[in-house]
């Protein structure tokens, strides 16, 4: 089966973020980037499905030139080839605009299954996969914790709230948004990294996918959230601050 995995490159998790001069995005110059975590699980799921059922895994990524690094890592882990929608100004598009680009690239590939993470760690809209499915006119299901392929259909385990789950069956092709923790991530092997160098990365431009629609949702400004709660921070070395905290817990909170 042919599986496309849509991945996104985001700032590494512990990044110290600063708002840029025009107040609408972050300063990217000093940041390091990595694969969006839920997308890493989607990629792993695709690789495992390929190992079970055969076929091909294609990594799809919309992002600026720097995203090539993340794409290489996906290839090193075992994706067979990649498509890079290379564009520096994706920030001016909204989710629908980006999903249209991705759907355009997917259409030409005619895959059996499309996987992506359930949300991105940067914007966190959590809908690119679902929107892509709607644009492609195929079924979707979200927050998936297990995938079983059975011929022309799939049975998935969808996470519900408060520890509940549900199985859902639907026809292929379909889009699934994958939850973190569905599987155990692999590391790229030395051999994998070597092989990745000769694997194909097809670069596609915005123009080739048709003009993007103007955004209907735009970020007007970003800012550090105002604190709603007064936090008392205990200063000093570990021993001093620990002693101050325990004193609070004993005499004010009264739990010791």
């Amino acid at each position, binding site marked *: 089966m042919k599986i496309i995995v849509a991945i996104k490159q985001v700032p590494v998790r512990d990044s110290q973020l600063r708002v840029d001069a025009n107040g609408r995005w972050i300063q990217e110059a000093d940041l390091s980037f990595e694969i969006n975590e839920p997308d890493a699980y989607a990629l792993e799921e695709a690789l495992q499905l390929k190992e079970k059922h055969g076929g091909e895994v294609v990594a799809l990524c919309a992002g600026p030139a720097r995203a090539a690094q993340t794409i290489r890592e996906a290839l090193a882990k075992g994706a067979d080839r990649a498509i890079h929608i290379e564009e520096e100004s994706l920030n001016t598009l909204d989710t629908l605009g980006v999903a249209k680009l991705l759907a355009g690239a997917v259409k030409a590939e005619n895959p059996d299954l499309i996987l992506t993470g359930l949300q991105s760690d940067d914007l966190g809209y959590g809908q690119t996969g679902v929107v892509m499915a*709607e644009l492609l006119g195929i079924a*979707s299901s979200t927050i998936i914790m297990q995938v079983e392929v059975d011929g022309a259909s799939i049975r998935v385990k969808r996470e519900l*709230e408060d*520890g509940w789950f549900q199985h859902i069956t639907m026809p292929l092709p379909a889009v699934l948004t994958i939850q*973190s*923790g569905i599987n155990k991530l692999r590391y790229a092997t030395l051999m994998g990294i070597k092989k990745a160098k000769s694997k194909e990365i097809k670069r596609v431009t915005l123009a080739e996918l048709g003009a993007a629609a103007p955004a209907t949702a735009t970020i007007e*400004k970003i800012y*550090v959230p105002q604190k709603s709660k007064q936090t008392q921070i205990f200063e000093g070395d570990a021993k001093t601050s620990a002693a101050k*905290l325990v004193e609070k817990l004993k005499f004010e909170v009264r739990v010791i």
Partner: protein
Amino acid sequence: MSVLVVLEQTGGKWNRMSWETLVAGQQLSAQMGVDLHVAVPGSGIGALAAEAAAKKCAKVYAVEHDLLKDYTADAYTAAVEALVRAVSPTLVLFPHTYQVRDFAPKLATRFSQVLISDAIAVKIESGSPVFVRLLFQGKLNGDVRVSGGGPYFASLQAGAFRVDALESGSAPVESFAPPLAAASIRQKPEAPFRESARAVDLTAAEIIVSVGRGIKEKENIPIVEELAKALGAELAASRPICDAGWLPMERQVGSSGQTVAPKVYMAIGISGAIQHLVGMKGAKTIVAINKDANAPIFEVADYGIVGDLFEVVPALVEEVKKAKS
């Protein structure tokens, strides 16, 4: 011109976030000077629609169909789409639930719109809404403006609006029969289930010591375990720790785990992604220990130590033992 609030129920039981969304609808429709309409999709929802009609709004639509009995993305998208086309609201509001995440983006796409998901506040500026959302896992906020004439779609984060502000009233209920066909519903759902009986009931704990990514390795878990032992606390964790199998799933706190409200919640090496915060922000006293002073967990913490947990936690164990002796 109206605001439409879509309430969520499963098997005749409300999702508790529904009423918070209705509060948002009441406040925003008043600010915009338009009517508030409420939709209750489902099957056999007469009593629920009547309950909604006892809240302040202009009209309740009982969106009733046999094919809405068990939730599917395709049926719910089609049903709400039909209602939105019939009612033509300016703004459609949902609670940001797992179900809404599954179908509302699809619905918005049918109107060439983007769902403004997981909004924490809505401002009305010259008649049109500006939504506040968390970005970068809560490290930054963003104001999102929508344009293009609508209808605009937004889902609201749990706790963004306070349910105690809900106003009562009396509104008519109108039945709405969406045109649904079984053949066009591609998802075949089975009955929901729980993985196993929960052996650990975190909700009963007075003190919870919870550990996150900051612990780095499974081998380090005993460091935090020892603090829990010293305090007589239950040990809990954020999702990544349970995903990695370092602690069992039943010890997970957050939107996909347990929701707790202990006397003291100690978050150790937990950055405070919103999925975790919704599970613990009801704790009476929240203590955060994290090396990153900008971590969102400090937004909700009463007490904090900015430092290396591998130094702070052993020191805490010492001090707790001293205080107890």
